């Protein structure tokens, strides 16, 4: 999932994420690398439970919360819709 731009020297914004919250040298994608399974997604993603670390709702992930976040951490975390792969995303599934 790594964009080749992520480690290249660039301006004060990240070329991979097109953001100014970090540079290409400090892009979270440098470390947020998952070793995926061969079998791919085994659970229907609609049935994955979602809990919000920001408001405790059981409807969405914390990054996707509509309430203001008290945190000043600018990056997205593991807990967002975008990090919840659906069956179609998995290229190496049989």
């Amino acid at each position, binding site marked *: 999932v790594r964009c080749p731009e992520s480690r290249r020297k660039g301006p004060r914004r990240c070329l991979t994420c097109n953001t100014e919250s970090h540079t290409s040298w400090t892009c979270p994608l*440098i*470390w947020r690398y998952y070793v995926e399974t061969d079998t791919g997604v*085994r*659970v229907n993603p609609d049935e994955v439970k979602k809990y919000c670390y920001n408001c405790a709702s059981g409807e969405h992930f*914390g990054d996707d919360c509509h309430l203001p976040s008290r945190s000043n*951490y600018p990056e997205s975390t*593991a*807990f967002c819709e975008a990090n919840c*792969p659906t069956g179609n995303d998995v290229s190496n599934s049989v």
Partner: protein
Amino acid sequence: RKRMAYEIDPSSCPWHRPYKVDTEVSRLLHQDITQFVDYITPTPEEHAVRKSLISRINSAVLKKWPDVSVYVFGSFETRLYLPTSDLDMVIMSSDYHYRGTKKDMYILAHHLRKCKVATEIQVITTANVPIIKFVDPITRIHVDVSFNQAGGLKTCLVVNGFLKKFPALRPLVIIIKHYLNMRALNEVFLGGLSSYAIVCLVASFLQLHPRLSTGSIREEDNYGVLLLELLELYGKRFHYDAVGIAVHNGGFYFSKKKQGWLRPNQPYLLSIMDPVEFTNDVSKSSRGLLRVKATLGNGFDLLTNELFTLASRIEREGARKVSDFPSILGCIISVDEGVRKHRIH
């Protein structure tokens, strides 16, 4: 690069072995975590030493009070202890004789000293859970003895169940425990997090992680990225004022306010619903939660900085050079001489 107040000497990373070639820094961290956990996990000899201490204490207690039962719980039973961890024991009274009054505690303390299984004895009758603390003169292991507290025995079963179910639980708990322990934040009476609370925090993280719950990744392949995301969640993002954690029924969050667990004067405290006693908040006494949170966040910053540095070295020098790279965990964790000596004996 920013460093913590103290520098960590690389010779204090005795677990570290040269990395196998890899281009992904989170997998280098995975290797380092595996090596650290292998190093710090008690050896069969150390486990045997603790076992024999337990049987010495057991027979000393039974000599005085033949009608009680002595149990071990906590990190000994779950094998999550560090070489310097305390040994937790509980004395359960029989139906006929209640043992556990203040007077009983002093009688037992005196008896244990006479039997030469205890030195440096402290009888703490004022705490929430009264205990006798002492040091075994032979092994120098610290022991806590409590009375008629069945809670610890039940939690052991739950923790062992989680350890079976979540392969990443043991390595992540050991790292967090060691990291907080080094900063005196693994002692509840100092306002830190108990080991049980750490187990619940990590278990909740694993239960609710989207990649794990969809089965797109396996825990045992991803210790590195999971450690960072754990620190990111609890050090940077988690809204402690609003959200409480539950780990039963597959794990969920609840509203602290709706549960009536929001403390007006300390809204920032972590709330964890005890899976063996739902009315109990596991972390209610962890007054230093803000320090714990800052420490976890700081650990995240230090580790990610180190990984950015290593990633650019891989870029410049190529992946073959990674075997020379230093321990990544070395920027947040060290093993002091006491532990190293402990490790050898």
